[in-house]
Each structure stands twice: as C-alpha cells, then as structure tokens.
C-alpha cells in the first residue's frame, strides 16, 4: 500500500504554501503558458533548454527530499506511484510509466496541465511543447536512481499539442 500521503504533505506556513516542507506556489495556465511562450519566442532553443533544466533541477531537489522522507518506499513501483500521485495532485496531469529502469524507459501522458493550458490559450503547435514535463521527468528519474543531476535525457516523441493521441516521452541515461 502506498504510504505517500499528499494531502498531509500539502499545507501552509503562514502566507506560504508548502509541499513536504518546501515552498510551492500555485499558478494558473495563463502564467505557465505565457512564461513558456515568452522564453521560446525570445531565446529559441536556449529558452526551451531553460524551461527543461529549471523543471529538472526543481523536481530533482523536491523528489530527492521526498524520497528521503519516505524511505520506507523501497520498490521502483512504489516510487513511480509516488511520482504519478505527486504529478496528478499538483494539477500537472496523468503519467503512466512503462518499463523504467536505470537505463531509461518510456512514459505516456494522456493528459497534462501544459497541454490543456496551451490548447486553451494558443491552440495546436507544430513542434512538441511539453518541456516542463520532460524536465520534471528527468529530475524525478535522476532522484529515484540516485544519479547526479542532468544524468537523464528526456525526449518527447509524440505530443498532444501536435495532434497525437498521447504525449510519449523517452527517457535515456546519459551518465
């Protein structure tokens, strides 16, 4: 049984929102999508990389901290369940993990905040657009397998923003 209790992890310290003791903020799709568009339009590939790296670093730190708090979670299955629960309960969407090991694997997302938000504001795109989710996954997998930051590379092979049925992410280990 999954011991991770996200309802207990989410709370407040005065005016601050905290998740498992770490400062979080609530933002809506307008801000998240505006930020992404600003970075992509202004910096191009460097902006895409910044979106990816920022999500990776933040989630690597969050997830490493969470795994230390929930040290009773030993199996990969329970750790990935915690990841999917966290992603869903932070309003980021749904993740299904397929055969993930230290060398990588595949993740399928049938729904996400960034896809829903981008479609609502800007409609379809011709290139994959889930840079946040790619970075989030890279950070999470690095923490699960206790590798240094930037050990994993995540590529989005299919994206709902381009009309595909699901977003499909391929994870590989660079280290």
């Amino acid at each position, binding site marked *: 049984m999954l011991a991770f209790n996200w*309802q207990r992890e*989410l709370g*407040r310290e*005065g*005016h*601050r*929102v905290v*998740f498992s003791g*770490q*400062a*979080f*903020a*609530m*933002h*809506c*799709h*307008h*801000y*998240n999508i*505006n*930020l992404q*568009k*600003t*970075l992509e339009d*202004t*910096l191009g590939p*460097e*902006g895409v990389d*910044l*979106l990816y*790296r*920022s*999500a990776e*670093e*933040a*989630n690597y*730190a*969050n997830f490493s901290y969470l795994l230390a708090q929930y040290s009773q979670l030993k199996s990969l299955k329970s750790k990935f369940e915690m990841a999917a629960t966290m*992603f*869903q*309960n*932070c*309003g*980021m*969407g*749904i993740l299904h993990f397929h055969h993930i090991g230290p060398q990588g694997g595949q993740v399928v997302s*049938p*729904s*996400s*905040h960034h896809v*829903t*938000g981008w479609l*609502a504001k800007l409609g379809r795109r011709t290139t994959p657009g889930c840079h946040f989710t790619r970075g989030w996954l890279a950070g999470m997998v690095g923490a699960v397998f206790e590798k240094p930051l930037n050990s994993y590379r995540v590529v989005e092979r299919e994206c709902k923003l381009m009309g595909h049925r699901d977003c499909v992410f391929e994870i590989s280990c660079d280290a």
Partner: protein
Amino acid sequence: MAIDGTKIIHAVMEGSRIRESKGIIPLFGVYLSLFSVKYYNRLSFDFEKKMGESRRNEAEKLLVAAAQECGYATFQGIRNSWEWDQIVKPMIEHPEDQIDGFTAVAVAFGWGDLVVKELVPKRSLVIHVGDSYEARGFLEDYGPSESGKCYMLRGVTGAFMDLLYGDDYPEGCFTFTAEESRCRAKGDPYCEFVARKSSG
C-alpha cells in the same frame, strides 16, 4: 463588510485538493498547478541573465508583461467564477473591495503576504509585500540586487488596476503600469508596488 482573506485562503486550499480524473485542477475559472517556487525563480532570473546586460530592460519588460497579461486573464476568470460568486462577492460592498479579494487570492496562491496600503480609485494602487517568493528566492540564490526583482507581482499589481479601471475585458490590459519602488532583494524592509496609469 470587509473582505475576509482567511475564508478565501481556506476556499483555495480546499479547492486545490480537488482534481478531476485527468489530473487537472479547475478552480476559480482557471487551471491551477502547484510547483516549487525555485522553478519560477530560476526561469525568471536565468532568463534575465541569458538576455545579457544589453537586453536587461527588455527581459524585465517581457517578464512583467507576461505576468500582467496573465494576471489580467486569471483574475478576470476568478471574478467571474462560481467560487468568487459564492465566497467573495457576498463580502464586496464597493467595486474597490475587489482589490482586497484579488490580493487575498494571491496570498492563498503562495505569492507572498500582500497588503493593500493605498488605493486612489482610477488613479493609483500601492501594495506592500513583506515576503515575496521572488525577492526571497533572488536573495537566497544570487545575493543582494541593485534593482527590484519581483516581476510577477509587479505585473499582477498593474493587472488589478486594469481590471477595475481599464476598458472592458479584454481591451483594458496595460492601461496601468506598475513599478517596484522598494524590494527586499535590494535591502529594503519590504517590496512596494505602485501602479499608475500608463503613459502614452
């Protein structure tokens, strides 16, 4: 009746625990997400850094504009939502009370301890924030700054005035412009945002 921020914070915290089956949080007319402030700070401050000294003003303007446009759409959605009708509207006696409702939602979202210090209808708004996540994050990661660093809150302050005194939505965005006259990141005791009518 004054706006009771505690009720709004409670509503946001309870609402943010409700997810639909797709893992999306639809609340106050928007899709909400929760994530580390470190992500948002890294995006803003590294974007500014990557733009370089010669494009620093442009970076600042883009970040403030992104936030103002977002604040304008977000709080328009919020004040037209079912939750606003149920929780906030009964507490509103004057149109200006909406600003207190907006700031209470911003506090609930974890953006900082916003307090409205002065509102001159149709002219200006002054908001103080003792602990904004942007100023705190900048100080922690980069040390003291020479200029204000709370781009998101600056844009949002302008958006509050746009919604009250600009043309009808969606034509009124950027009617007002906010400056950050004081910022904790540059050693001030609090961050101060002042919105006034945009020039030109």
